[in-house]
């Protein structure tokens, strides 16, 4: 029994500091130690959350943001993945495309914002384009390097055991590159949200960023904080999805096994 309590306490330990912070935040704002112009009380943020949930506004904005993020990710991720595969597998493709892609990669994609607004206006295309560009390069680089770094010994072994073409790709090359590809996916999911936040904050008529910017005009501190929390939550969810994929597809990998100590508390 005592052991069990001890165990539970150990499991709750990582949450001690966040809970403590939240409680002192609430108390400090209630006592007026932190001005309401700086930070609203957590309870007010919660009130804004319930309000906006009731009116349906919150769901609408979150849905719009999510749709933009995923569409951009699907487009940019596929392009990056396809070029990564092509250039990793075929030397002539690498010779043709790799240098150009590496050059484009060095342009900071957020520097494109003014240009993109001129091209597409402030419609959906602008945001999706920016997300796609942001996501493309990490996926490309990691796919390309993943395939280039597949153990040559295993490829040779596969060939002597009768594999070639598709069977060699699906049984040796792709599984060998998968952990690297997933690193690219995980990284680009992070970049995806950051890009969308910037794009939505600068110019939009809906989405979480728009919600925050209109709240700023009316000085609704609680809604601004709520918007930030929504982005954080969505970021966390996409990271969890990426980790789920790693656990599912890399069960064989010594560094991704369940019960691995490096996984604890993440």
């Amino acid at each position: 029994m005592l052991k069990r309590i001890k165990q539970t306490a150990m499991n709750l330990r990582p949450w001690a500091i966040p809970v403590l912070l939240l409680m002192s935040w609430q108390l400090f704002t209630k006592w007026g130690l932190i001005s309401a112009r700086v930070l609203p009380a957590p309870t007010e943020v919660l009130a804004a959350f319930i309000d906006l949930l009731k009116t349906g506004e919150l769901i609408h904005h979150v849905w719009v943001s999510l749709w933009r993020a995923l569409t951009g990710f699907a487009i940019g991720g596929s392009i990056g993945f396809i070029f990564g595969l092509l250039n990793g597998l075929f030397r002539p493709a690498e010779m043709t495309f790799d240098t150009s892609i590496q050059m484009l990669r060095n342009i900071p994609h957020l520097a494109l914002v003014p240009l993109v607004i001129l091209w597409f206006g402030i419609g959906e295309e602008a945001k999706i384009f920016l997300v796609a560009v942001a996501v493309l390069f990490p996926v490309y680089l990691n796919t390309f390097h993943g395939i280039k770094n597949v153990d040559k010994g295993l490829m040779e072994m596969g060939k002597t055991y009768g594999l070639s073409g598709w069977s060699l790709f699906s049984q040796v090359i792709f599984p060998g590159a998968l952990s690297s590809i997933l690193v690219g996916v995980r990284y680009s999911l992070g970049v995806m949200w950051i890009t969308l936040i910037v794009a939505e904050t600068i110019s939009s008529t809906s989405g979480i960023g728009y919600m925050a910017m209109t709240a700023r005009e009316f000085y609704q501190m609680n809604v601004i904080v709520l918007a930030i929390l929504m982005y954080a939550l969505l970021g966390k969810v996409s990271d969890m999805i990426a980790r789920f994929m790693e656990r599912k597809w890399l069960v064989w990998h010594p560094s991704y096994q369940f019960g691995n100590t490096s996984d604890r508390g993440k």
Partner: protein
Amino acid sequence: MVKTNTAHLQMSGIEKRFGSIKVLKGLDLTIHEGEFVAVVGKSGCGKSTLLRLIAGLDKPSSGTIFVAGEPLTTLNREARIVFQDGRLLPWKRVLDNVILGLGKSAKDEAMKVLEDVGLVERTEEWPGKLSGGQKQRVALARALMHKPKILLLDEPLGALDALTRMEMQKLMERLWLKHQFTTLLVTHDVEEAVLLADRVVLIKDGKIASDVRVPLKRPRHKNQIGFGAIVEHILQQILEKKSEKTSASLGYV
């Protein structure tokens, strides 16, 4: 062993260059069907290179390898190779590694072969969880599944501890006696070569420096009369400064 006298593998004047370095310099070797030949030599002498040429993984710079009378131009389809590091696919379970290149219908057969190498209870394990010896058993099973006429062993026991080596040597001999494939074992361990092979071939300066027939009765052991003498004879030749081509058959046992 009952052996037919047909040459299964025939090589004459084989040369292999890597850049400006000549590893094999006109090597001649004939191996008969069902024979167990061990290839020994100092590290870097080209013994693994020879095995890769026979497997068709590399092409000789000059000279031709004949497999059952046919010149070898692509991968050697009659041969399967077992590498020193096993080269199991870490993302496939043991059973799926063993049926690599064969399809699901080979599973029943694979279970039999895994039983033969003593791994039948680890079929659903990931290779990463196996010991070095177990990995090599899986690699052997995978090679056996293809029913090769020629089995090429590239220092398959090089990374194993002494006890596991002894077990694996017994296993390899048993499998060879059962399946009767022509076997080429590359090893740096002369005792291992004498323990298992019908002939021990020494490569030195890119050529066959000696070709020693081992007439000891099987199963052999290290205290057998004559065993030590053969080992000593081969070791002397490896360490000799000048290579003199000797083709000795030690008939005094």
